[in-house]
Structures are given as C-alpha cells and as structure tokens.
C-alpha cells in the first residue's frame, strides 16, 4: 500500500501553498495602499497568482480523483478522521471559489483579469458597483475562511508530527 503522496501531489501541494501565502500576503498589503502605479501592479500580480492557483487546483483535483491518497494513520479517533475529511474538502473548495470570487469581483468592478498581461479572461458579469461591493466582501470573507482552515490544517499537521509522531507530515514531502 502506498504510504506517501505521489511526487505530483506533493509538488502541487507545496506550490499551491506557496502561491496562496504570497497571494494572501499581497492581498492583505495592497488593499489599503493609496492609489499609485505600484498598487496597480500589485493588483495585477495578485490576480495572476489567483488564476495560477485556480489552474493548479484544477490539475490537483483531477490528480486527487484519479490517485488514491495514502490512508490516515490507524488509531485516529473517528471525530478526527471526520474533521480531516471535511477540512480537506473545505480547502479544496476554497482554492477554487476564492480565485473565482476574485475573478467575479474584477469583472463587476470593470477591471478585467489579463493573465500575465497576455490573456484576457472573459468578464463573468457586467460592471455593477453594488455587486462589486458585495463581491469584494465575499472575496475577503472567503480569504479569511481559507486563513482559518489553513491555520487548523497546519496545527493538525504539527500535532501529528510533534505530539503523535506518526510521520504524517513526511508523507507530504518527496521520498528518498
């Protein structure tokens, strides 16, 4: 039985983790900046990161559905197994709908997403100030949700690594 994640799964996990950390930090930092050329750049970069996460998430979900992950450590209480299951479902959901809400927000505010400055994404909705305001809130709320879930995810991984010492964290790294 496979005891660790595949190289592809591991690569996707950490790549997406890195991009989310960068995208989140940038998003947090840029929002309250006064308007400047730099701010416009940060917004573009933030959107590019979001599109990249969305594309990688598609790849990742496909991989996940076609490759069975290693089983949870034996002896984990049922509630923890349940929490793990739903926590991961939540994370998967958010890496899709968080970028999507950003794309919607961009469309509604009339500032379309042009991926890497090269490919313009179609607008999902027309320009609408009220809707843009709502979508901004939704995007922030989902980002906060992701922050909380990632926090729990990291704490749980630490618990397995340092308290349970069950080698769970190592499975999400490249095997030798």
């Amino acid at each position, binding site marked *: 039985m496979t005891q660790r994640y595949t190289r592809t799964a591991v690569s996707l996990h950490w790549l997406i983790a890195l991009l989310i950390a960068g995208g989140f930090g940038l998003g947090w930092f840029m929002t309250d900046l006064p308007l400047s*050329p730099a701010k416009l*750049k940060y917004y573009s970069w933030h959107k590019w990161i979001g599109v990249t996460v969305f594309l990688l998430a598609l790849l990742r979900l496909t991989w996940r559905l076609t490759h069975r992950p290693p089983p949870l450590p034996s002896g984990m209480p049922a509630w923890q197994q349940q929490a793990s299951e739903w926590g991961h479902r939540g994370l998967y959901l958010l890496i899709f709908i968080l970028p999507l809400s950003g794309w919607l927000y961009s469309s509604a505010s*009339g500032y*379309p997403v*042009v991926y890497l400055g090269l490919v313009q994404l179609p607008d999902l909705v027309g320009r609408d*100030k009220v809707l843009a305001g709502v979508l901004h809130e939704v995007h922030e709320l989902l980002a906060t949700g992701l922050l909380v879930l990632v926090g729990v995810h990291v704490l749980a991984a630490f618990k397995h690594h340092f308290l349970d010492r069950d080698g769970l964290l190592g499975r999400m790294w490249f095997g030798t």
Partner: protein
Amino acid sequence: MKIVPKSLLALSLLSFGALAPAALGIDSAKSKATATFKQMNVPVDGEFTKIAGTVSFDPAKPEAASASIEIETAGFDLGMEDYNAEVRKKEWFDSKAYPKATFQSTAFKALGGDRYQASGRLSIKGKTTDISLPVTVKREAAATVFEGSLPVSRKTYGIGDASWDEVVEDLVTVKFHIVQPR
C-alpha cells in the same frame, strides 16, 4: 469656455453666407462619451458623465454642419471613487484649473452613406490640437445620433505624469455617442 449662445452661433454662420440649419443642443442625458485605456494590458473603461454642446447638421448640406461639444473632466467615472479622485488631480486632468475639454468642429465632409469626416480642434487641459475623425450619422425617428471614436495620446495633452507611464498606456480610445433630439 462657455457654450456659444445659439443666436450668436447662427449669426456667425450666417455671416459666412452658409444657410446652415440652426445649431441645436444635444441631449446630455442620452449622449455618452467613454475613454478606454490600458493599464498593464488591462482595458478599463471610464465614462464622461457630463457632456453638453450643440450640433447643426443637415444631410442635404453636410459641409455646412458644425459641432461644439464640451465635457466636464471632473465627471470622469472610472467606477471607483479613489480612481475618480486621482484623475481629477493636477497630474491628470487638473479639473480645477481646466474644468472642461472641448471639441469645436471646423469642417465636415461626406464620405458616402452615413459616414462623414469631421475636422476640428480638440482642447484638453489647456492644449489645443487639430484632429480629424470619421463620424457615423444615424437619423432616427426622434433624434440624430452621431457616433465615432478616436485615439488620443495622453502625453500630447499632459494627462498623467511619467511615473504612470510604466503601467498606463499613452493611447486612449475615446468613443462617443451623441444624441440630438429632432
């Protein structure tokens, strides 16, 4: 610059000997002008919400047509209040010192069908240049509609300082849809 009173305009046209139709005010609510610019290749539309002016046009005598249009730069709406405030600043439109951008036609030429070539003077931020642009004229039941677009270089008129050049393209496409009730 104030709108030339209709009577004065008619008088001046008469003095040229042309029997031009009277210049009629445009419908400010239905008339629209937008400017599309690109920032980091992202096309963004801004709308000039305050537009006024007069047009005289007779399809039988297109060469006698004339147009005088003015736009309040402070009415430029980019969809976000901080952006709107930014473009009213000195570096951009400097709306306090130059509240209006104007177009005054000097010549009108029929190109066939509903297409015409308009020439005139475009003044933005205190700078005036001669421009020429194609205009489509549609005669509707209750109104005459003038449509067209023209590329405008920001730098020609000193709109936006150098610090923005890296992210905002120089060429801006201005589109207009002017409705004159009949």
